[in-house]
């Protein structure tokens, strides 16, 4: 079981992702804006973050950059989940250190599979070690 932070201002999407990841055996916490997401992620304890690009207060891209810039969170797996499909957005996000990029509309099971794959790769699947 892994602890996952889902940051999206759309609370129905939050509900959807929470349900799906819950089903996949993960524990989910949500944040409705970029700043809250950044704060929670910095506090640690998460194994992975799902980030929306367009959020109030602070965009997902900015959160991504901020998390990558800090030693404590530089290796925290991040999946972008966004409606921005432009090629440069995808490339820029991956360059900035996102582990994966999923565009809306998405297939919920696919998101869960990608999250699991990343957790497996980064060795966070079984050991829910707090990140600090």
């Amino acid at each position, binding site marked *: 079981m892994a602890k996952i932070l889902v940051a999206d201002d759309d609370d129905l999407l939050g*509900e959807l992702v929470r349900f799906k990841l819950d089903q996949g055996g993960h524990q989910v916490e949500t944040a409705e804006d970029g700043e809250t997401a950044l704060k929670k992620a910095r506090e640690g304890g998460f194994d992975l973050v799902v980030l929306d690009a367009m959020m109030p207060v602070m965009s997902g891209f900015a959160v991504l950059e901020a998390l990558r810039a800090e030693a404590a969170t530089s290796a925290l797996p991040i999946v972008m989940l966004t409606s921005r499909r432009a090629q440069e957005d995808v490339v820029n996000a991956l360059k900035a250190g996102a582990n994966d990029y999923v565009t809306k509309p998405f297939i919920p099971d696919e998101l869960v599979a990608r999250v699991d794959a990343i957790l497996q790769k980064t060795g966070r699947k079984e050991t829910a070690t707090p990140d600090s």
Partner: protein
Amino acid sequence: MTFSPSPDGMAESAIAISVVGFSIMTILLLLLVLRRYWIEQRQNERRDSLRMITAQLMVWLSGDDVGAKLADAPRQDKLDALVHLYQLVRGSDRQKLGQFAIDNRLLQPIIARARRGSVNSRIDAVRILEWVGQDESIKALKQVLLRDANPRIRLEAAAALAQLDALPYPKILVTALDLETTKPTRLHRALFRAAAPKYGPELVAMLRRKIPDELRAALVDALGWTGDYSSLEHLAAASHHANPLVRRAALRAASQVNHPAAAPWIFALLDDQDETVRELAAQTCAHLGLRKAMPKLREMERDASPWVRLRVEQALGAMAEPA
């Protein structure tokens, strides 16, 4: 002399009117504020309700039984949650959500609204049908496209059908949107492009008829989106058309097809007498990476038109960079 522009009686009634007016306004303002307060409260409740419905819908999607909670939820909330989710997910979950809408007869009132009601309400309904998709919506949208008296709404329905990849034959589209008599806009061009992959041969057939140049340009433009190289010969033919609009459309389409077989006539258009065509031809050369055009483009750096010079510079710049 005693003279008063307004006798006191009148003045008194004016004051009375003002006092009454102010009282009414104060009450109206308070009502407006209360209404807002109520909306804010209701929004919180609604958010909870939508959340609950979402969770239940997810349970339903994963194949489990859902309780009476979902059945009892307000129909409007159910529809809103559904439309919202529908836009977030794709794949089989989306299909199932559409089925849910039909099973629960959520679409009927919307379809009814799309047929009658005020212009605004009809447009709203068309947009909801577009979001939900499904055969039933498509059927209703097609009817709106063919029958609605308001051209604005017919256009809205066409755009919705394009989004659902369910446009009718281009010929029907032309009639439904009065394009034989009115000038096509950018929105119309988008519609023809959306129809192109399905109806390439029909587009070509329409080009053989006598149609206004603007419409011809829109159809030629759409030929670039058929995903079929056989459209290239029709583009080559369009490149000789007398109207620069059509020649430009051919160039845009060629850019989209992106096949070097179009090179000869694109080169020819570099010498076009119309500057907007020369401009676009230069851009198209760069887009297709037609390096053979470079000597000609270098000559064109001295073109009389600053626009052509600008585009040529950009084209040469783009082709100079290592691919």
